[in-house]
């Protein structure tokens, strides 16, 4: 009948084994632990996680998995101006316009996409978190200054920025990474700042200040960790966007490299001319981009749901 079961207080020190002061954390279910438990029950999350895992494995194991090196053109002799050989025993997905093995190029392409996606998201995440932390922790004129800078960054169209960067440092995958990363910075900055402002108004932060903790400790060990949830979700979703954007920018040729470069966007661009002769050259890299983006999106959305306090009723 007791609404508050705390009445029963069998107070024996033996419950917590001695010498385990801080390991106590491994028993209760923290927010992240609860989120993991919910993720495991969500079919969307599992599908997303499997896709992401396959993608990452393929990217990492490309040298083992791919039948041919990235830039190799093993079937060069079989290409005719009017004919591109389809799937065969030697080339399971057929050849491309230059005699490259399509399967090998798709596998190596995964590596390029993963690299560009992860690197650019890391740039966006680090830059955005630094700016967001500055704005959210100090407030006042620092906040105003940082947020105006962020507004400035948002006002430049991403494509224009990418073209400008490519113009300055030359067409290369590096230009794509920087362009996509820089475009992400304001998004992460705003998200972290908003999240921190919301947390800062809560009583536990006031309670921490009342304990006499320094401002730095309050910010770093209470406000920041509690503000990271939405940022991590956004980063997962951003990976999907980054993979698509990377393909888009290299489709436009900003990534540089030879026409034979094993990169999904680049392959799509090359396939344009052969659309009627060999549609698979466009379809397969396109499908790879779409499925990878879908995987990250599914996982990110499931993570958002799992971390959402509104649905966190057990």
């Amino acid at each position, binding site marked *: 009948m007791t609404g508050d079961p*705390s009445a029963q207080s069998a107070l024996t020190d033996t419950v917590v084994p001695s010498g385990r*002061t801080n390991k106590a954390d491994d028993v*209760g*279910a923290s927010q992240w632990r609860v989120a993991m438990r919910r993720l495991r029950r969500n079919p969307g999350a599992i599908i997303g996680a499997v896709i992401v895992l396959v993608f990452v494995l393929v990217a990492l194991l490309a040298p083992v998995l791919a039948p041919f090196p990235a830039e190799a053109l093993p079937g060069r002799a079989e290409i005719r101006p009017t004919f591109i050989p389809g799937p065969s025993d030697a080339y399971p997905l057929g050849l491309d316009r230059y005699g490259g093995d399509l399967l090998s190029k798709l596998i190596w392409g995964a590596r390029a996409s993963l690299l560009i996606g992860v690197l650019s998201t890391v740039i966006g995440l680090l830059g955005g978190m630094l700016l967001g932390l500055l704005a959210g922790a100090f407030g006042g004129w620092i906040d105003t200054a940082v947020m105006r800078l962020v507004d400035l960054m948002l006002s430049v169209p991403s494509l224009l920025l990418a073209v400008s960067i490519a113009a300055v440092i030359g067409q290369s995958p590096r230009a794509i990474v920087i362009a996509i990363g820089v475009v992400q910075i304001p998004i992460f900055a705003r998200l972290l700042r908003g999240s921190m402002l919301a947390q800062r108004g809560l*009583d536990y932060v006031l309670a921490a200040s009342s304990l006499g903790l320094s401002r730095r400790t309050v910010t770093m060990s209470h406000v920041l960790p509690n503000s990271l949830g939405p940022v991590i979700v956004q980063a997962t979703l951003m990976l999907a966007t980054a993979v698509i954007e990377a393909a888009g920018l290299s489709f436009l040729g900003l990534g540089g490299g030879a026409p034979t470069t094993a990169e999904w966007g680049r392959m799509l661009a090359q396939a344009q001319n052969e659309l009627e002769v060999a549609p698979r050259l466009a379809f397969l890299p396109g499908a790879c981009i779409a499925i990878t983006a879908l995987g990250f999106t599914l996982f990110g959305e499931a993570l958002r749901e799992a971390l959402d306090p509104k649905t966190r009723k057990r």
Partner: protein
Amino acid sequence: MTGSPLLSLRDVEVTFTTEAGSLPAARGVSFDVHPGETVAIVGESGSGKSTTAAAVIGLLAENGAVTRGQILFDGQDLAALPHSATSRLRGSDIGMVPQDPMSNLNPVMRVGDQIVEALEDNGVARGAAARRRAVELLEEAGLPDAERRARQYPHEFSGGMRQRALIAMGLSCRPRLLIADEPTSALDVTVQRVILDRLDELTAELGTAVLLITHDLGLAAERASRIVVMYGGEVVETGPALELLRDPQHEYTQRLLAAAPSLASRRIQLAKVTGLAAVAARDLLSVSHGDGVDAATEGAGGTRTDSIIEVSGVSKVFQLRGKGLFSRTEAFTAVDDVSFVIPRGRTVAIVGESGSGKSTVARMMLDLIPPTSGSITFNGERVGGANRAAEVRFRRQVQPIFQDPYASLDPLYSIYRTIEEPLRAHDFGTAAQRRERVHELMDDVALSPTLLRRYPAELSGGQRQRVAIARALALNPDLVVCDEAVSALDVIVQSQILRLLADLQSRLGLSYLFISHDLAVVRQIADHVCVMQDGRIVEQGTADDVFDQPQTPYTQMLLDAIPGAGLELGVAS
């Protein structure tokens, strides 16, 4: 009470399907509401009272369903009707006044238009006639200047005005049954009374039956002729209001009766009149009532110097942004020339409605915001403006307990880490000594040490508030500032926490500043009371003086607003 009931619940079971499987939220619920009668469902959060109401009006959440029993409205089983049929009944035959007036009006639609919409949708009136009727309804709900008000948007209304608009809407189609789910719990006490009075008059005039959902037994007893007590999804007791109060049968009702602050303060009042001091003492938790000797020495000894904190002439002015783009900031005086003293080991309460400045006083006492003028002296030392060492010393000695136990603990910290944090921050002993202290604190607040590994999300509201208290006590403070510390808790838990606070005070010699809007709670715990209105203290004195001989009309109004003020309770027993 004779004749057939308007609403009759027969063995109703409501089940929710959740991640964890199906969860019955109400079981075997049976009761009747006769035409024109007011019936109250009383229970704590999670008792199934709101779920039952939602089942009647067909507004259960998507994952909920009536899985057994009948809900007979005028002989028709609502549970068996298709969705379209219940939605036709809604509004026209069964009206609803929701709990939160802030979120239940469409913010982008004029208030009048929202009532017109209800009228037109239910086919009561159309066009110009509907608009005229909407104004009449607002007038009827007690909204002054209704003609002009009908053209305004919800944000131009105060909480009380919005609730009047919602009452107008709920009664717009002259329903035979009105469901009022905690209709006033989001409002200030003085407004609550006025709104409930108006609702009473209106429904009596129109002959509307009312199903009132509330957590306050005192309020239920005052407003309803019959009370249904729910606990854990089941009806534990049903009966005529006064009978149930005088002679509660079920153990839970008895505990609810003992815990409800509104009833406790009424018992104190009645006991004083009849001179039964011993009876009043059961409900009085303050130190000066704990032992009569103490109260006597205070008058004689003249120990004026032994005050832990002195607040003299403190004001706080906030600069608000001006209305125009280039206009200057406007000054807003939240706290105006406030002075009071907290004697060591005593409880001083500040009561007031929202916007009275009481929380701003609390924040200044905690040195979270600086006062604009005036001074706060703690143990003879001036608060704020001093060096970091003095600030740290002050922080050790003054600790807060906040209102919302869901927000006052860091969700990422285990309970152990939460309570240990202040010890660690102030370099208290070795790791082993800290661990010992944490266990001692858990013992103090009567929590099992097995909870130490849990996280706040895994604890009940009462348990969390105990953790917050343990954390506040970790550094052996002299003064604890309780800002609405029990307001968010269910009545029984509330009374447990109040008793815990009183017990800790007498054991550890703590002083409390107790901020609350609830006079009934203040009556029980406070030695001294300051009544705040619009940033000023309008009255202060000992709790007995303020409650027994209020000097200002405002205090009198606050006292009258405590539900159950006129109830004849059996005190002598």
